[in-house]
């Protein structure tokens, strides 16, 4: 499973090299997938770890065009492989809503036992979610939420608002400890038109507001390293002195860090978002302004598969007093710092 795409990729690339660039490039093409099967799920308890009755889980998610979404699909697959009795039926990721609807319909027709769906657009996929529920297939709705609870049995996702709150609280606490008056706090947001970005920004502003601080220079990037670098390069020019900076997304964070490095700036503390392995390693090394990152972890996909299995087997969650799986689970946006980074490295994803 892990070897096949790698070999295929290599062959593909060698062919491309011959066409595009000649023999020189022949050796320059392989990309050893560094710990691609890494993200271990968080520990599970009790007798639930024992194999139960066979369950087929259908899975549908958007195209993996971003480190975080790529990690979601990877985690789901890896988690499914951990259970011998689970059959994992994943469809090709797509950003075309129509195609995702027909993929889910195919899974319904194939009579899978449980569906795990991360919709490209929650509103647009609500009806097909409901169709599955009506057909007696419980749906686990991952991250982007459907319009109505009728369309899912259980929702699991992250907390964008609290991500902002926790980043704001951490920054406020650090600045208060240093007795900084009227600090200048910058923000590098993601795509401004997305509700998730607006929620993150609102949480951040609210938390800073409670501490008597406010957001200073703010730019919005595109969740890519290049846009992160461009926006931050300008932001740093506009703010000759900064006390803190929050960057919403660790994928774009690579570019944000590069811009900070180019500008030779060190006077402020930076907080990231989402929790990539790369950022966690930088936090651990403690040699750059980045001191923390607030989680929005793709480990939720592993949890979703674990829950789907339990749903299919009619079991509850070990340590809860409930007989059934809860209807909603919101993951916590923990603040990862130098002190606790070792504890969270296992959920860090390759950005």
């Amino acid at each position, binding site marked *: 499973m892990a070897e096949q795409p790698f070999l295929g990729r290599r062959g593909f690339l060698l062919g491309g090299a011959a066409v595009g660039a000649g023999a020189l490039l022949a050796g320059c093409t392989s990309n050893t997938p560094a710990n691609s099967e890494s993200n271990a799920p968080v520990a599970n308890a009790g007798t639930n770890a024992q194999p139960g009755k066979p369950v087929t889980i259908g899975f549908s998610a958007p195209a993996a*065009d971003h480190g975080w979404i790529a990690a979601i699909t990877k985690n789901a697959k890896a988690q499914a492989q951990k259970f011998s009795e689970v059959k994992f039926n994943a469809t090709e990721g797509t950003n075309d809503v129509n195609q995702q609807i027909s993929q889910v319909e195919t899974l319904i027709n194939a009579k899978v036992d449980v569906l795990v769906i991360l919709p490209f657009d929650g509103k647009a996929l609500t009806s097909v979610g409901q169709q599955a529920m009506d057909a007696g297939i419980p749906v686990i709705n991952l991250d982007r939420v459907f319009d109505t609870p009728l369309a899912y049995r259980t929702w699991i996702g992250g907390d964008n608002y609290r991500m902002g709150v926790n980043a704001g609280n951490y920054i406020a606490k650090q600045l208060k400890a240093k007795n900084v008056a009227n600090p200048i706090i910058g923000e590098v947001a993601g795509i401004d038109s997305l509700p998730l970005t607006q929620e993150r920004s609102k949480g951040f502003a609210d938390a800073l507001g409670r501490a008597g601080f406010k957001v200073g220079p703010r730019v919005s990037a595109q969740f890519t390293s290049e846009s992160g670098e461009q926006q931050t390069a300008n932001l740093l*020019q506009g703010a000759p002195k900064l006390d803190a900076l929050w960057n919403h997304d660790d*994928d774009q964070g690579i570019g944000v860090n590069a811009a900070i490095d180019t500008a030779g700036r060190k006077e402020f503390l930076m907080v990231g978002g989402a929790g990539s392995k790369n950022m966690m390693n930088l936090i651990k090394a403690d040699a750059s302004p980045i001191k923390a990152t607030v989680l929005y972890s793709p480990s939720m996909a592993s949890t979703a598969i674990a829950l789907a299995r339990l749903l299919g087997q009619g079991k509850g969650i070990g340590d809860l007093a409930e007989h059934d799986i809860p209807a909603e689970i919101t993951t916590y946006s923990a603040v990862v710092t130098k002190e606790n980074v070792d504890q969270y490295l296992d959920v860090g994803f390759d950005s």
Partner: protein
Amino acid sequence: MTETQAPPQEALPVERKRFSFRADPRLLGLAGVLVVLCLVGQFTRPELFFTESNISTILRLAAAIGVVSVGMTFVIISGGIDLSVGSMVGLAGVWLTTLATQSYGPWVMVLCGLAVGLGCGLVNGVLVAYGKVVPFIATLAMYVSARGLAERISGRRTQVVADQDFLAFFRGDLLGIPVLIWLFALVFAVGWVVLNRTTFGRRTYAVGGNIEASRLAGINVKRHLALVYGVAGLCCGIAALMVVARTTAGASTNGMFYELDAIAAVVIGGTLLTGGRGSLIGTLIGVLIFTVLSNLFTLNNLDTDIQNIAKGVIIVLAVLLQFRARKARTSP
């Protein structure tokens, strides 16, 4: 090229471009827009705008898109269009940052980036010139497939550059000026000389002005067109090096929307989309206008959506200005 093959100068619909604003009054208006933007910057953030570090930031940000726009200018003057420049920047970027490439050291990284860019450009050129595929379609195909290949190679991960020599050189300074700015200046200067002082440049104008006349005048039109797209591809390879150096990583998302920015810069720079006419100076000013604009907006902490509206207005204004200047010139 031997002398006998070279067509007589006067047979070509070409005028020699000179490095002067007087030669082209349209550029004056464009330069005016840039000056106005700079003045706005000076008035709104006087303590910051004309500082060494801000100017250097603006130029570094302009470098990659500027280099791509140089290649785009060649293509558009030749009467074509290249929609694939952004994808080629992305592909060259991830190819030069794969673990295997990096393990051979900085030179291989550089050569790999250039070769991939040049190779993709030549594929475009061969399709357009020899395959008779319309440029719009040929480069649209490259736009999709190069991005797809980039995603496949990188596994959609952002590949961080571990090679310190590569980073140290491209992120460093030379005589107090960032290497990226030197590179940008070099590409621009070479492009200007090639376009305005060599047979290759004259033929590019000729082919774009009237392809049939150029063929009759003895120009190997097919080979020339293929090479023009190769030039654009090579520029993308250089830009890929710059983006990788700036972000310290190769990602399949690098170069997103460069095609639109480059076309906008070339067009507001006064180059005709129908081919045969245009100048690199105009393109340079076009690129700088957009870069200064986004710098201005961020320095004043304004929203990016308003910035996009302003960009649109500037494109329309600049083109309207040129239209008027052209009319004034052609109908005395």
